[in-house]
C-alpha cells in the first residue's frame, strides 16, 4: 500500500513529448490501453514529424502523444495538457506554449545539457532560470535512473539501457494516475519475447518508474479518475484506421463477397493497407500496386469480377486516381475510395490533419461525375461509415468516397463493439438472366437497364453464361449499353447518373441538437470536427447560452432535410479545417449565407477557441 494520498479527479489531459526516437507514440499507446482498461472515456491525438528520424534533439524532431481521459464523456483529445512529460529541451520548447499556468511538467533533466539546450536556442536552462516558475515542475533524471535501475543487466550496452527510459516514464505516470500495468507487461512480453534480456530490462524500468513515484518525496500524491458512465456493452479502444479496416471487413462479411484492396502506401492511410493485409483469413485480398492509379485499377477490375473493390489513399493519391474514378462512375460499378485527408496542397503536411479534399472528392473529375461522399465523425465512427459506404456502393453500383482524415486515422477512443447479429445484411444479387429481348424476340442482356427504384444497373459478373457484355468509358446508350454519341442519349445518361446518386435512400435526416429549443444560431460541422464542436457547444451552453448544433456525415447526397434546417436559423456557422469548402457547397445549393469558421493549422480545433467564435456570433445577433 502506498503511504501517499490519493486525490480524485474527474478529467486529465496528459501529453508525452520527446524526440522521435524516444518512443513517445508507444508510451502514449500503452498509457491509453491502461486507461481504457480502467473504464475511462478517452480521446487521443498523436502528433509526429513526417521524417522517420528527424535530427535528434531538434524542434522538427519532436514527437508527441496527447491523451484526454475522464469519468464522463470525452469529446476531444483536450486543448491544453494538465501534465506535460518533456523528455528533452526541444520537447519542452515545442510544447510549452500549449501548457496552461499551474499545470504539471515532468522533465527529464539528464537531457538538459548545455549542448542540447543550445541546439534549440535556450541560452539558460529553463528548469532553473525561472521560466517554469508558474508551473508545477518535477525534475527527474529519467535517463540516469533508468540506467542505474538496469545496472545488473551486463548484456546490455548503455545505449540499450537508456532506450528503456520511456518505460520508466510510463511506470511513473501509471503510478501517478493509478493505471494497471498488467496489459503493458503482457504487451512487452509479446514484443520482446525473443530477447529475454531486453524484455526484463523494460519490465524493470517500468517497475522502477512506478516505484520512483511511490517512494520519492517529489510526488506527494497520486490521482484517481473514476470510470466514466458509458452505455452498457463490450468496449475496446480503437483508432480510426483500424475501425475503418474493420468496417470494410464486416461489410464484406455481411455482403458475403470477397474484398479486394488495391493500394499504394501513403501517410496517413498506409495503416489501413497494413491492417487489411493481415486479415487474409477473412477472405481479404490486398495488392500493393506500382502507383495509386494501378491501385484503383486493381480494385475496379476486382469489382467488375464481383468483389468489393477498395482503394485507400490520401489527397495526392486521389489526384492520381481521378480518371479511374470517372471510369467507375461511367461503368457504374461498386468501388470504395478511402481518402485519409492530410494537409495540402501537394505533399503539404503528410502527418497533419486537414479537411481540404471535400471539393476534390465532390468535383475533382472531368465531366459530370457524381460520387457519393461519406465522412466519419469520430475514430470509432469510421467503422460505421465504412460499412455504410459498402452498402451504397454495392446497392447503387457506384464508387463511394470515404473521407477520413489524419486526426481520425491515428486518434483513438473507446468503441462499443457491435454484435455481429445486429449488423445489417448487405447481400446484393448479381444478374443471372437475360433482361430483355432483341428485334427478333430473342432474349438478350441489357447491361444498362436500370432498377426503377434505385436506378442501379445490373451487376453481371464474368462467368455468368448468356450475359456476356462489353462496358467502357465511352458514353453508352441507355438500356443496351452500346457505344452512343447521340446528343439526347448523353443528356439522358448524364441526368440518370446524377439522379441515381441524388436519390440514394437510407440517408437519415440531419438531427439537430437544441436543448433549450430557442437557439437562433446553428453550428454545423462535418467529419472529424464533431468532437471539438460538441465540446465547444457544451461549454457555451453550460455558460447559459442557447445554441443549436448538427453534424453532417453524408456530404453527397446531403440529408433531405438539410435545406429546411439551414433556413430555420438566423445564423449558421460552419467550422471546418479548410478555407470554407462545405460553406461553398451549402451556399451554392441552398442560397443560405452560412458563416465559415476555418483553420488549417494541421491540428483539430481547440475547444476554447471554438467556444469564443460561437459566443461572438451569439453576441452579434443580440
Amino acid at each position, binding site marked *: 500500500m502506498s503511504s501517499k494520498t490519493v486525490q480524485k479527479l474527474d478529467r486529465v489531459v496528459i501529453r508525452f513529448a520527446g524526440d522521435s526516437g524516444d518512443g513517445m507514440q508507444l508510451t502514449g499507446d500503452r498509457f491509453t490501453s491502461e486507461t481504457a*482498461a480502467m473504464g475511462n472515456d478517452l480521446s487521443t491525438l498523436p502528433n509526429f514529424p513526417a521524417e522517420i528520424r528527424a535530427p535528434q534533439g531538434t524542434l522538427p524532431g519532436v514527437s508527441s502523444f496527447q491523451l484526454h481521459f475522464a469519468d464522463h464523456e470525452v469529446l476531444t483529445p483536450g486543448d491544453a495538457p494538465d501534465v506535460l512529460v518533456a523528455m528533452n529541451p526541444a520537447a519542452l520548447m515545442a510544447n510549452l506554449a500549449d501548457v496552461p499556468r499551474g499545470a504539471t511538467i515532468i522533465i527529464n533533466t539528464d537531457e538538459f545539457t548545455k549542448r542540447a539546450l543550445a541546439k534549440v536556442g535556450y541560452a539558460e536552462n529553463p528548469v532553473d532560470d525561472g521560466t517554469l516558475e508558474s508551473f508545477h515542475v518535477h525534475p527527474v533524471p529519467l535517463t540516469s535512473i533508468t540506467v542505474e535501475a538496469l545496472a545488473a543487466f551486463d548484456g546490455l550496452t548503455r545505449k540499450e539501457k537508456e532506450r528503456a527510459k520511456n518505460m520508466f516514464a510510463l511506470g511513473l505516470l501509471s503510478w501517478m494516475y493509478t493505471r494497471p500495468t498488467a496489459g503493458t507487461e503482457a504487451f512487452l512480453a509479446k514484443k520482446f519475447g525473443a530477447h529475454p534480456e531486453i524484455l526484463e530490462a523494460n519490465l524493470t524500468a517500468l517497475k522502477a518508474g512506478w516505484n520512483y513515484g511511490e517512494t520519492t518525496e517529489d510526488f506527494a500524491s497520486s490521482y484517481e479518475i473514476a470510470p466514466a458512465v458509458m452505455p452498457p456493452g463490450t468496449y475496446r479502444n480503437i483508432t480510426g484506421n483500424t475501425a475503418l479496416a474493420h468496417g470494410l471487413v464486416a461489410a464484406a462479411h455481411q455482403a458475403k463477397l470477397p474484398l479486394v484492396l488495391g493500394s499504394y502506401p501513403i501517410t496517413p492511410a498506409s495503416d489501413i493497407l497494413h491492417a487489411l493485409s493481415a486479415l487474409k483469413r*477473412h477472405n481479404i485480398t490486398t495488392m500493393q500496386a506500382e502507383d495509386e492509379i*494501378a491501385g484503383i*485499377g486493381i480494385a475496379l477490375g476486382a469489382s467488375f*469480377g464481383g468483389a468489393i473493390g477498395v482503394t485507400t489513399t490520401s489527397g495526392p493519391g486521389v489526384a492520381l486516381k481521378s480518371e*479511374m474514378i470517372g471510369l467507375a462512375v461511367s461503368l457504374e460499378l461498386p468501388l470504395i475510395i478511402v481518402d485519409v485527408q492530410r494537409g495540402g496542397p501537394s505533399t503539404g503536411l503528410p502527418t497533419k490533419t486537414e479537411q481540404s479534399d471535400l471539393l476534390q472528392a465532390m468535383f475533382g473529375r472531368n465531366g459530370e461525375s457524381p460520387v457519393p461522399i461519406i465522412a466519419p465523425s469520430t475514430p470509432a465512427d469510421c467503422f460505421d461509415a465504412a460499412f455504410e459506404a459498402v452498402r451504397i456502393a454495392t446497392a447503387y453500383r457506384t464508387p463511394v468516397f470515404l473521407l477520413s482524415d489524419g486526426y481520425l486515422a491515428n486518434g483513438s477512443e473507446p468503441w462499443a463493439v457491435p454484435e455481429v447479429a445486429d449488423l445489417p445484411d448487405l447481400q446484393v444479387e448479381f444478374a443471372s438472366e437475360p433482361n430483355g429481348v432483341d428485334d427478333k424476340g430473342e432474349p438478350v442482356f441489357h447491361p444498362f437497364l436500370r432498377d426503377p427504384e434505385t436506378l442501379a444497373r445490373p451487376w453481371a*459478373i464474368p462467368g455468368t*453464361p448468356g450475359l*456476356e457484355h462489353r462496358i467502357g*468509358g465511352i458514353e453508352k446508350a441507355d438500356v443496351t449499353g452500346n457505344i452512343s454519341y447521340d446528343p439526347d442519349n448523353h443528356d439522358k445518361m448524364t441526368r440518370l447518373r446524377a439522379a441515381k446518386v441524388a436519390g440514394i435512400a437510407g440517408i437519415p435526416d440531419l438531427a439537430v441538437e437544441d436543448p433549450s429549443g430557442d437557439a437562433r444560431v446553428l453550428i454545423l460541422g462535418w467529419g472529424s470536427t464533431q468532437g471539438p464542436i460538441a465540446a465547444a457547444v457544451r461549454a457555451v451552453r453550460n455558460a447559459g447560452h442557447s445554441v443549436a448544433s448538427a453534424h453532417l456525415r453524408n456530404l453527397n447526397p446531403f440529408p433531405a432535410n438539410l435545406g429546411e434546417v439551414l433556413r430555420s436559423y438566423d445564423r449558421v456557422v460552419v467550422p471546418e479545417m479548410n478555407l470554407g469548402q462545405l460553406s461553398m457547397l451549402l451556399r451554392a445549393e441552398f442560397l443560405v449565407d452560412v458563416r465559415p469558421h476555418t483553420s488549417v493549422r494541421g491540428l483539430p480545433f481547440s475547444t476554447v477557441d471554438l467556444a469564443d467564435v460561437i459566443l461572438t456570433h451569439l453576441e452579434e445577433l443580440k
Partner: protein
Amino acid sequence: MTAIDNSRDALNATAGGVAASNGAPTRPSGLAGIPLLAPDAAKQTKKEFTSDQEVRWCPGCGDYAILAAVQSFLPELGLKRENITFVSGIGCSSRFPYYLDTYGMHSIHGRAPSIATGLATSRPDQNVWVVTGDGDALSIGGNHLIHALRRNVNMTILLFNNEIYGLTKGQYSPTSRVGQVTKSTPMGSVDQPFNPVSLALGAEATFVARTTDTDRKHLTGILQAAAEHRGTSLVEIYQNCPIFNDGAFDLIKDRTQQEARLVHLLDGEPVQVGPEDDRKTLVRMPGGGLEFVPAASAEGADVVVHDAGADDPSQAFALSRLDSPEMTHVPMGIFRSVSRPTYDDGVRAQVEAAVTTAGGPATDDDLAALLRGRDTWTVA
C-alpha cells in the same frame, strides 16, 4: 444469386498443364483453373465470338486481320465464352473488346494491365486478355506494363504496334523511328524509340513473342502459345495503320524481301535468315557480338541456337537487338517462354492458406472475435 464457383469440383473440370515440346517437365497451363466446355458440347464457331457491333476501324486497317484471327482462334481454347474477358485501354486498337462476344471492358488510357490484374487475381476462372497499342502500353501505360510483366500475372497482353498514335490522328509514338515525320514532328522525330521486346525482357517477362497482323498462321500459333503460358504473355503484333503510318512494315511484308529479312525463331534450332540458296546463320563473334555469316562458313563457329526456355534472358535480349530501323533482320516468334510462379497464384495461395489455417471461411464468431480485438472491457 450467382455465386462465383471456385470450388474444387468446378476447378476439376478445367484444363491441366501442358507438356513442353522438348519433353521438359509439365508446366502449369495458363488455362488451368478455368472451366472447360463440356466434352460433348458442339464446337464453337468464329461467329459465336463475334458481337453484334459494327466494326469501325478505317478500311484496310491491320486491326481487322488481328480481330478475324482472334475470333477464329478463340474456339480453339475450348473455354466457355463467359469465362473469357478482354480488357483494353484507349486507342484504335483498344476498341477490340467491343467486337468480341465475351466479357469485356474498354477502360482508360494505359491502365488496362492494372484492371486486368485485379480481375485475374480475384477470378482464377477467367481467361484474361489485354489489348493495347504502342502509345497505350509504352507511353502512358509504361509503368503498368512493366509491373504486370515482372509480377507475371496470368494474362495475355496483345500489343498492337503501328508505330503511331492512330486514334488521336497521327502523332509519333514511343515506337516511332527517329526522323519519322508525323503531325507532331514535322521536322522528324528526335525521340529514341523503345524496342518493346527488349523492354519486356528487361522487365522480367516470362513470355515474349512477336508476330504480324497479316500472317494469320503465325499469329494464331503465337496466340495459342501465349494463352497456354501461365503468367503474363506479351505479344507484340506489328500492325499497319494505312491512314497515319502506312507501310511501316512493308519491308518485312513484301514477298520479295521478306525472306532475306525475317528471322524465324525456332526453339532448339540455329538462328538463321535468308532463302535456301543464300542462308545465313547467326554466330557469336569473339568479342561477344552476334553476326549473321553465310551458313557454309558457320561451321566450327559459335552458332547461336535459340533457347526460349533459357533461364538467363541475355540471349533472347541479344536477339531482340538484331532489330534496326532499316529492318535488315527482324526476329519473329517466341523470344522467351519460361515458367515462373505467377503473382495471382501466389496471392490466392496466401489467402487460401490463411483461411485454411484458421479452420475455414470466417464465421460470424470469427468476425466478432476480430472486432473485439485483444483488449476489451465490459460496462454493465
